[in-house]
């Protein structure tokens, strides 16, 4: 199969499905039950952490698209930007949802003001503003330019927010991957990486699918406008 066909949306999504299913099987039947107090509830980690990292990747893609747009304005960069932020926001909501479920199981509370979860909460509010901004500018080019400027500033703010939440009192969140190594057993690490690959492929497939959809939507709008003339 050619690279082109392999990187089409259906192929990417099918691959993602395969990896995610394999990740699920590995997480439940291959990786051992966590030895810490979290025990079985730790299984959600194989979804929660990859979703979190994928959300950040999506915002990173939006950042790159924004820089590319400002350097050379083209509709496709703007489309890539919108789609990435939309998916990033969706994944961020899933991070909070899975984080809350895990929090309830492991700590007994739905919400702890824990640095990483708090960061994602702020990120959700931040990127929700991106869509408010877009909806308030009518002129296409100006909308794309403003959205790009905001996407750049917002992405810069994400690590800063994470860093600032460290000034808050200590949280409960386990630090799994630190500079000192991964702190995971081999089998756990493999299951995690398979889920991680699946989630990243899912994002790539969805981005391809959604950008194509945006493109078609614009063409329909364009044709409609021409018909009315």
């Amino acid at each position, binding site marked *: 199969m050619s690279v082109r066909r392999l990187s089409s949306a259906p192929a990417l999504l099918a691959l993602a499905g395969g990896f995610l299913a394999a990740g699920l099987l590995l997480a439940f039947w291959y990786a051992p039950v966590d030895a810490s107090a979290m025990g079985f509830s730790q299984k959600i980690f194989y979804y929660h952490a990859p979703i979190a990292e994928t959300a950040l990747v999506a915002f990173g893609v939006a950042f790159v698209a924004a820089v590319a747009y*400002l350097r050379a304005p083209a509709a496709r960069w703007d489309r890539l930007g919108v789609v990435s932020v939309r998916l990033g926001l969706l994944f961020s909501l899933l991070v909070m949802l899975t984080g809350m479920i895990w929090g309830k199981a492991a700590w007994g509370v739905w919400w702890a003001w824990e640095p990483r979860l708090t960061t994602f909460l702020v990120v959700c509010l931040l990127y929700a503003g991106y869509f408010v901004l877009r909806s308030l500018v009518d002129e296409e080019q100006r909308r794309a*330019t403003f959205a*790009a400027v*905001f996407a*750049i500033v917002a992405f810069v703010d994400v690590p800063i927010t994470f860093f*600032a939440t460290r000034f808050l009192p200590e949280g409960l969140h386990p630090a799994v991957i630190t500079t000192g190594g991964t702190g995971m057993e081999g089998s756990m690490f493999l299951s995690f990486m398979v889920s991680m690959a699946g989630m990243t492929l899912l994002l790539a497939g969805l981005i391809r699918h959604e950008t194509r959809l945006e493109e078609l939507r614009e063409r329909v709008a364009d044709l409609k406008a021409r018909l009315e003339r």
Partner: protein
Amino acid sequence: MGAAAQFAALLHKDLLRELRTRETLVSMLLFVLLALVIFHYAFDVGAGSLARLTGGMLWVTFVFAVLLGLNRTFAQEKDEHCLDGLLLCPVDRVVIFAAKTAANLVFVLLIQAAAVPVFSVFFVQRDYLGQLPAFLAVLLLADLGICALGTLLATISMSTRARDLLLPVLFLPLVVPLVIAASSATTMALAEGAGFGRLAGRLLFLAGFDLVFLVAAWGTYDYAIGE
């Protein structure tokens, strides 16, 4: 005209306009004083626990007060079409950004010069002369970050349909890290008597925040002001 002269002229114009009308400063100051009174009654927790809230109260008040001023940053220019003239001048956009940021900074500092003594009498009720330099450093660094980021976003939101509605939606989430650092540093300085040594991490963070967003604004301002 060099960039420095342009900067001085633009800043002079903004300050002069504000001194003649005083519309922004008066409403900002009244807002701050009202907020402090409201906080006193809203958090009826006794002096001991109140000390732990000082930083938070102060920075929530200042951030919202700054929003009032930021919304006025380009109001006149936009309404009277001065902006078109300004953009036609051979002025680097970054100079406009620097002048507007500086004007906002001056307004905030004037408000704080009046509000901080009142705040100290109302809520701190202890002598913090020893921590004053550290507290002033927190104020200056946080103000610079708030004004730089705020001016960039005010520039964007002035060209949208719902100007003053949009600004808080964009500005507040971005400024969360700064509020976290500044309010915890303020509480540490005023309630716990922490000096430069214990605040070093937070001060460094605030300085880093300022630097990052000054660079980001410098890089994107041409696009933000548009036209």
